[in-house]
């Protein structure tokens, strides 16, 4: 089988989406740790457009953008499917994946902002959560139905990181009485064995992200 490599860092929610997908499919891969303050020549060669992680390299060919990578993984390794079977449900899954991409940005913006900007991004993040709570999950166990899927991975990284970022910026957005469905879902998500075994330790993540935020604020 052609070699699979994943370029990334172990702080990145986008990288974790790919790790989860590869592990759920049982695809062996080599992790190539990148230093984002000193990106490798190989990373820049594989992702000249965005120069970002994650990049999946399969048989020497690079795939960029976490959700594009996830669909690539799904189509290349069909075992343990992470997308629904029928076209309409797939379209719905892709809708929520796109929503996670477009609106999940609010959480990353929160991490990087202060003052009025922080207030604005918090409002955006709250709206995002409200929409997902109201329209996205329904009464399903996972976004993908009875089993974990790509949409769960997309939101899983957003919500897990949000819970840490909230603490760092002193926000209280993701309250269980406001978001009962999402709260139940994230607990279920974290207990899926592959996820449980491949989640960054919360305390370590908090410390690392706090430091990162301080660095960002200092250089602003």
């Amino acid at each position, binding site marked *: 089988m052609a070699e699979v490599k994943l370029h990334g860092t172990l702080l990145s929610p986008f990288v974790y989406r790919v790790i989860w997908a590869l592990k759920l499919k049982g695809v062996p891969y080599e992790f190539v740790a990148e230093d984002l303050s000193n990106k490798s020549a190989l990373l820049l060669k594989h992702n000249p457009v965005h120069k970002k992680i994650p990049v999946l390299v399969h048989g020497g060919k690079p795939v960029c953008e976490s959700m594009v990578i996830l669909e690539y993984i799904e189509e290349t390794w069909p075992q343990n499917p992470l997308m629904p079977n029928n076209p309409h449900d797939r379209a*719905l899954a892709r809708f929520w994946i796109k929503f996670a991409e477009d609106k999940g940005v609010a959480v990353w913006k929160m991490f990087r902002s202060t003052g009025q900007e922080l207030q604005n991004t918090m409002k955006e993040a709250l709206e995002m959560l409200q929409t997902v709570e109201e329209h996205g999950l329904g009464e399903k166990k996972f976004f993908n139905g009875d089993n974990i899927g790509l949409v769960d991975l997309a939101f899983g990284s957003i919500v897990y990181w949000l819970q840490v970022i909230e603490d760092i910026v002193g926000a209280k957005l993701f309250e269980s009485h406001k978001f009962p469905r999402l709260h139940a879902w994230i607990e279920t998500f974290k207990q899926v064995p592959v996820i449980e075994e491949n989640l960054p330790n919360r305390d370590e993540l908090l410390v690392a992200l706090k430091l990162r935020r301080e660095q960002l604020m200092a250089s602003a």
Partner: protein
Amino acid sequence: MEGENEVKLHGMWASTYSKRVELALKVKGIPYEYIEEDLRNKSPLLLQYNPVYKKVPVLVHNGKPIAESYIILEYIDETWQNGPRLLPQDPYQRAQIRFWASFIQQQLFGSFYKLISSNGEEQEKAVEEVFEKMNVLEKGMKELLPEGVPEVDGNNSGVLDILVTATFGPYKAHEEVFGLKVLDPEKYPLLFSWVQKLNEIPLVKGVLPPHDKLVALLQFMKQNGLKPSS
């Protein structure tokens, strides 16, 4: 048979996103009913079909709605497997197309939007950004299509042809209203020649918004500080 393969499209005649879906339906030869939405007075059906964004286009297939134009394109390709395929079968090629579709959507359109909604120095910066993104797109397409743009006709158009047509097909109207040459043949020869070829196809001519009507709408929006929103 009633209800079997009933296809409806809620769209707007000037919306580039709406046009993407019309092009795909026509390329695949899928009969559909078109419902023109007044974006200042959206139909209750539209709001019911797309409660999250309340936007066009929405495709309704046998009563089930699908929103978001690129997603609709993939849905159409997966559902109607006769006729030309809009996406290749190979996962790596599909990943490349999805990458560029995402680039056009997030990066390029993001910059266009900044361009038309800013003034003065901010707008100058936005112009630079647009040219930068166009550069990246031109380069990306050159690598994706090392033999140049294949001969296109209404029978073998793919998702990239559709995206390029919907985005750049009406370039003359954009130039006239905004006084800016974005699709510059000297800077972006591949994109320019691709658009010329696509604009010759009768199917495309039949779908793209009429030039004068589009110019009038864009002038109106510009004068009234209105922003595009589906």
